[in-house]
């Protein structure tokens, strides 16, 4: 019993408690996930359009992109971007005659890496949704005199969002969990703060449990939000039951 009380004290907001740091870290996890998710959605939508309407070369490039993202471990992609970006940026700066070393902020790399990962998955979700829109509707749009982009904006996109939402919800869960990997490059999110706290107090168990619980709270809450969004976009569809 005493052990449990001591553990709870570790998570308090007072002196010797890590509660405040954990709340901040949870905020960082949400911020990191949201930023990467939005970046991933933009990348995914563009890549999906290129995959559906792009030429031979563009389609091939997008195919390579999604194959790599789906076949290579997330951790490896994060390492590549984390260790590789410095080398790349400094090489470019070196070519321009600037020798001063430049470092990208860890948060930016994290968002870029996780965003590219979510973008790869989002591409497939968007592509599936775009291709589900019946061809007759696109023809009808054309018959009304809409040009290509207008058909896309008025006919395809609104239906794509509804069809893609369940898949996009899954990607959000994936991304939320992938942000834990960004801890390896030093962004102070939930996983990182747990490691720091575990090391300094030598009591890893309560902190990792807390991190797990906070992740569960975030996933549960966001699942509810996605359900609401799905219901909202489904309101125009008549259901059989």
């Amino acid at each position, binding site marked *: 019993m005493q052990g449990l009380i001591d553990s709870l004290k570790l998570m308090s907001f007072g002196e010797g408690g890590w509660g405040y740091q954990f709340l901040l870290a949870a905020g960082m996890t949400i911020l990191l996930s949201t930023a990467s998710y939005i970046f991933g959605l933009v990348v995914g939508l563009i890549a999906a359009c290129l995959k559906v309407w792009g030429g031979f070369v563009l389609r091939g490039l997008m195919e390579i992109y999604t194959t*790599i993202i789906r076949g*290579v*471990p997330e*951790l490896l992609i994060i390492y590549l971007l984390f260790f*590789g970006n410095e080398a790349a940026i400094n090489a470019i700066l070196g070519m321009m005659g600037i020798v001063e070393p430049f470092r990208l902020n860890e948060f930016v790399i994290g968002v870029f890496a996780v965003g590219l990962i979510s973008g790869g998955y989002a591409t497939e979700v968007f592509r599936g949704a775009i291709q589900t829109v019946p061809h007759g509707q696109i023809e009808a749009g054309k018959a009304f005199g809409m040009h290509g982009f207008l058909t896309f904006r008025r006919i395809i996109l609104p239906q794509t969002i509804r069809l893609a939402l369940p898949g996009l919800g899954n990607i959000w869960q994936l991304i939320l969990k992938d942000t834990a990997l960004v801890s390896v490059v030093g962004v102070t999110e939930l996983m990182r703060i747990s490691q720091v706290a*575990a090391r300094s107090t030598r009591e*890893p*168990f309560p902190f990792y449990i807390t991190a797990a619980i906070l*992740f569960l709270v975030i*996933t549960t809450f966001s699942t509810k939000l996605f359900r609401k969004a799905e219901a909202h976009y489904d309101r125009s569809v008549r259901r059989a039951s």
Partner: protein
Amino acid sequence: MDLDLILQTFGKLIGGAGTTIALIVPALMLGIVLATVLAVMRMSGNGLLSRLARGYVFVFRGTPLLVQIFLIYFGLGQFSALWKSLGVWDWPMREAFPCAVIAFALNTAAYTSEIIRGGLLAVPFGQIEAARACGMSRLTVFRRITVPIAIRQALPAYGNEVILMVKASSLASIITIMEITGIAKQINSQTFAPFEVFTAAGILYLAMNFVVAMGIRGVEWKLTPHMRRRA
């Protein structure tokens, strides 16, 4: 890009591939056993068992695998006195490798149990009815009708799960296991050639996943003789 370095790294990483496979295979086997138990619990109709299985799936799918690995390896390590008294401290609780396998197995079991459940639920009732009408006992129906159909249904999803497992095994490098990613990171810190090193590792993972996908497709082909076009 230094092609020589990529090839050189590749040779070193192949050794790590053995460790990666040694992590994945026992994890998948343990995972499938546990997943079957979970799926049976979930479909048992017993309120308590079903709720337990649901809770398990919820927790393991809702938290990052990295948190699960750390919780098992570092978190449970905190209670060393207890493990010593039970005689499980020296193996497996203190060692990184078995801890990683346990974490992977527990994690994949949650996903796999849902795949198994989906497969079992997808068996058309008419098939079972027909088998019953032929006079098969419940066990015979399960063995001859339900299981083969369920396996066919679940196989593509399970193939994806195996690929996810191959990818997830890279996390073992964070708790000091020298599998592909671990070795790649070590080589990177010696050579400072992140592009070459991580590209080589990426190609190796892609190749492994390609083999897995082909293998699953082969099994699928084998299991669906009635779907093949007759020559």
